[in-house]
């Protein structure tokens, strides 16, 4: 669905944020795009949307070239930026105005999503708090039923209850021929809803794999009596999955990739080129 071919992206050719990315994001998944602050998550998302132009290489999203921003492409994508404001309109007027641009918009889905997120009605949108603005746009994005939904830090500003609702809304999404790509540095907000994960480190995608494939290759266990750990933080360890099967601890995986060069090397050797397994 999204194919990056030697993609370099950023704001300056001399200092690209991302260099020569070669990966794919397959449909049928909820992808978590993880990385440190300034690692290039937003840059990558903007490039996929066509808001930023690639500095080098190619990108294809659903068969379109994003930077052309063709009308048909824009109809199939919904992008929720990290920071945004909404126009001086009421909820009703916003829906009347903007939903007509979205061929698959479902008002019923929109209303139930707002209700699930405990959205406060009755105010003009531009006066809403950050959390309420997020609730509103997430609900609108999901109701548009776009094949490609891109969310940049969607849980920023959401309260605990709304985060739970967000997770259950995503879990109930029909992902047939669809892809939801979420960037976050709050790993715990996304745990248990992601079906695949991509982690950016030093301008490169170190791992891009389904959660199932990760669980089949490595296990997360207690560090006591663990001599052959690929990575350990003193309390827990990552080992090669042989007999053991454990839930994927995304936070630990993220830390291991960021802290340990050896683990990164192991991941690159064992996971790279296996993006095709992301196809459900």
């Amino acid at each position, binding site marked *: 669905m999204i194919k990056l071919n030697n993609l370099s992206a950023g*704001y300056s050719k001399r200092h690209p944020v991302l260099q020569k990315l070669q990966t794919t994001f397959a449909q049928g998944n909820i992808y978590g795009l993880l990385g440190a602050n300034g690692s290039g998550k937003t840059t990558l998302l*903007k490039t996929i*949307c*066509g*808001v*930023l*132009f690639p500095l080098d290489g190619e990108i294809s999203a659903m068969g379109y070239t994003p*930077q*052309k*921003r*063709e*009308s048909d492409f*824009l*109809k199939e*994508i*919904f*992008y929720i*930026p990290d*920071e*945004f*404001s909404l*126009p*001086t*309109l009421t909820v009703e*007027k916003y829906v009347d*105005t*903007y939903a*007509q*641009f*979205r061929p698959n918009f479902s008002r019923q889905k929109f209303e139930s999503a707002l209700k699930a997120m405990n959205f406060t009605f009755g105010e003009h949108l531009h006066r809403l708090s950050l959390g309420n603005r997020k609730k509103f746009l997430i609900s609108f994005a999901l109701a548009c039923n776009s094949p490609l939904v891109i969310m940049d830090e969607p849980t920023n500003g959401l309260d605990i209850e709304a985060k739970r609702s967000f997770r259950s809304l995503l879990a109930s999404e029909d992902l047939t021929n669809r892809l939801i790509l979420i960037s976050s540095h709050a790993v715990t907000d996304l745990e248990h809803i992601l079906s695949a994960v991509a982690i950016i480190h030093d301008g490169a995608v170190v791992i891009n794999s389904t959660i199932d494939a990760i669980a089949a290759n490595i296990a997360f266990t207690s560090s006591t009596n663990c001599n052959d750990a690929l990575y350990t933080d003193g309390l827990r360890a990552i080992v090669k999955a042989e007999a053991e099967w454990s839930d994927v601890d995304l936070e630990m995986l993220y830390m291991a990739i960021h802290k340990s060069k050896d683990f990164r090397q192991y991941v690159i050797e064992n996971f790279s080129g296996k993006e095709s397994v992301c196809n459900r």
Partner: protein
Amino acid sequence: MQQIKLFFKDFSRLIAVHYRENWWVGLFAIGALSVVTIYKYINIINIYSNIGWNQELLTLFKHNRELCTALIVFITAVYSFACTLKTYGDKERIHDAMMLPASHKAKFFAEVLYSLVLLPLVMFVILFVTDTVTALICQNSEENIVLINADKEHIYSLPSYLYAILFFHSITTLWRADNSHIAVRTVVVMTILFLAFYVNTPLTYPFIWSDFTGVTREGLHIVFNMEISWASSELGKILHYLIYGTLPIMLYAISYYKHKERSL
């Protein structure tokens, strides 16, 4: 056919989006112009009722028209800038326009229509109505009405004012679209064109070119041909039409950069 249908669908939706969000700005602009125009013309009517018709009143008429036309152009320019810059200055809303599922053409023509066509058109209608009503009230002879109506500065000035609007529009757009080098080139080229062709002189406007044939009151047939620049009358005409003809193309190029811009 399908493409044209889609274009008009997108176009009308974009116009609706604009007016739903910005109706009050247009209304404020029209209101401001109406207040000034009516105030100025009431002044004329007052003078007329006190001292009657005279040359001074005719001059005042002309000045009022010039003032109101300048005001229309100023308001249009401000409105146009505001529309162009609306999403540029606001990082949080830039994605709205960029990611709105509509074609570039529809986005461009919608922007041109609501900022450069509809608003000035409405304002000129207001000016014409006020003008005609005042002229009717102040008339004391058919001759004066003929004189007043012959002084259509607001029409004569349109091309140069439009040129000025587009001039600033293009600079701002290009600059904000991270194409400052193109903006600088545009400024230089447009300034040269402006100086070379005296676009602010009514006689050089392509729409009222100074070639004139007619019959005087005395029944003489005359052909009036005024040389106004180094170019011959015909070449001048062609060049002017070229300049004005390229304006929409230029605006289209600007729009291309705007709607295809990178992130700010």
